[in-house]
């Protein structure tokens, strides 16, 4: 597997981290250090804070307490954590009106790509033949694979993946896991929230259910109910 970038001392350091979503405290007292080559499977029941943790790691949200550093050495040493991570979320971020090539070309220009060429990246995920089709007509699994190609065309050291294999068939999952291993060999870090087991070597498992936030009962329950209504009220 060709890897074009080697990451020097990519590192994720989490100390006594606490997370909340809205008014709901989700996780407390989480400490973890990851170095280049590490892969972590985030597990835990629904609503335990897996996606929230990924968003905090990506710099899209701030933790309620604790320290968090995402860093690497070399030319990109000064970048904030937003610019060091890739986020593969539930949603693929593809524009249906644009072709697969246009979609990826945009992300290359936006993120600054020095990775694989678009056709090579798509080939590695087995979707090379779709390059000139509009993204709107792709199947769910094809969209997911095109979205994952983004990680290859615009390389970044830390991959934060949310259910990366959810829509993928067995062959694509195997392909994807090979790419993850290649990324780790190049010194990258992978954090994947998942409900299925990922067949990766030396995979660490972090169960967010082990770090429950201490709930102040009574008041907390009322707040839960309030935030529920705020979030679910229709237009």
């Amino acid at each position: 597997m060709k890897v074009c970038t080697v990451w020097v001392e990519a590192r994720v350091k989490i100390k006594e981290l606490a997370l909340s979503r809205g008014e709901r405290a989700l996780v407390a007292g989480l400490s973890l250090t990851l170095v280049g080559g590490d892969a972590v499977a985030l597990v835990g029941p629904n609503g335990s804070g897996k996606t929230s943790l990924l968003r905090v790691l990506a710099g899209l949200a701030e933790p309620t307490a604790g320290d968090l550093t995402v860093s690497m050495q070399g030319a990109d040493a000064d970048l904030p954590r937003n610019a060091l991570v890739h986020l593969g979320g539930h949603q693929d971020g593809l524009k249906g009106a644009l072709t697969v090539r246009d979609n990826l070309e945009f992300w290359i220009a936006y993120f600054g790509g020095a990775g694989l060429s678009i056709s090579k990246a798509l080939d590695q995920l087995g979707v090379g033949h779709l390059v000139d089709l509009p993204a709107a007509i792709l199947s769910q699994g094809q969209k997911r694979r095109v979205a994952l190609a983004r990680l290859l065309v615009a390389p970044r050291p830390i991959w934060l993946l949310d259910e990366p294999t959810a829509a993928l068939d067995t062959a694509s999952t195997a392909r994807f896991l090979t790419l993850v291993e290649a990324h780790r060999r190049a010194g990258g870090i992978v954090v994947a929230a998942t409900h299925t087991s990922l067949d990766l070597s030396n995979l660490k498992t972090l169960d967010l259910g082990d770090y429950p936030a201490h709930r102040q009962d009574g008041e907390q329950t009322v707040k839960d109910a309030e935030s529920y209504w705020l979030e679910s009220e229709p237009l």
Partner: protein
Amino acid sequence: MSAFRALIARDVRLATRVGGGALTGTLFFLAVIVTIPFGVGPDLNLLSRIGPAIMWIGALLATLIGLERLFQSDKDDGALDLLRLTDSPVSNFVIAKVIAHWLGSSLPLVLVTPLLSLLLALEPRAILALTATLAVGTPALSFLGAVGAALAVTLRRGALLMAVIILPFSIPVLIFGVAATRAAIVDPDPFWPPFALLTATSLIYAVIGTLGAAATLKIGDG
């Protein structure tokens, strides 16, 4: 900087595709201006007197009509999160989105203004003034609308808020825009003071709107 340009290019491209929504505002504008003369009747003096105000109200509503969805499609497909994964501040992203929206939706509106002005029996000087005030004033509306659009993606009742919060702030733009245009027709009134105030409003809203929208997007994600 190339990321900035890439985002503008993508958004303009998406807007000008079929179903992209760039023409929605222009068509709405067209519909309002074309039907007014039939409603008012063939009184040319009356038309040219109320013409600038009608053009400005049409432009105001046409600009705001699609603006509420400025961040919505990026929110829906998850791109909004990805677009924030850069080392540049969220406000850069907001500015790029607003510029793209202005190019795709407001610029066509400014360009058809001279043509539509003929339907309202405006004289050449008024047409010139109207086009100039719209070109200078519509960016203010776009930046203002960005705040509403940011609220719309972070709150479920965004569409309602948009009308309640944004519309009052757009009134100064309307007043200065119409005042400058009218001054070009009615002789003793000076054109430049209201035009300068309109320009100033645009510049102020560019700052407030950018910071407001960026803060809203950030807080909404927290």
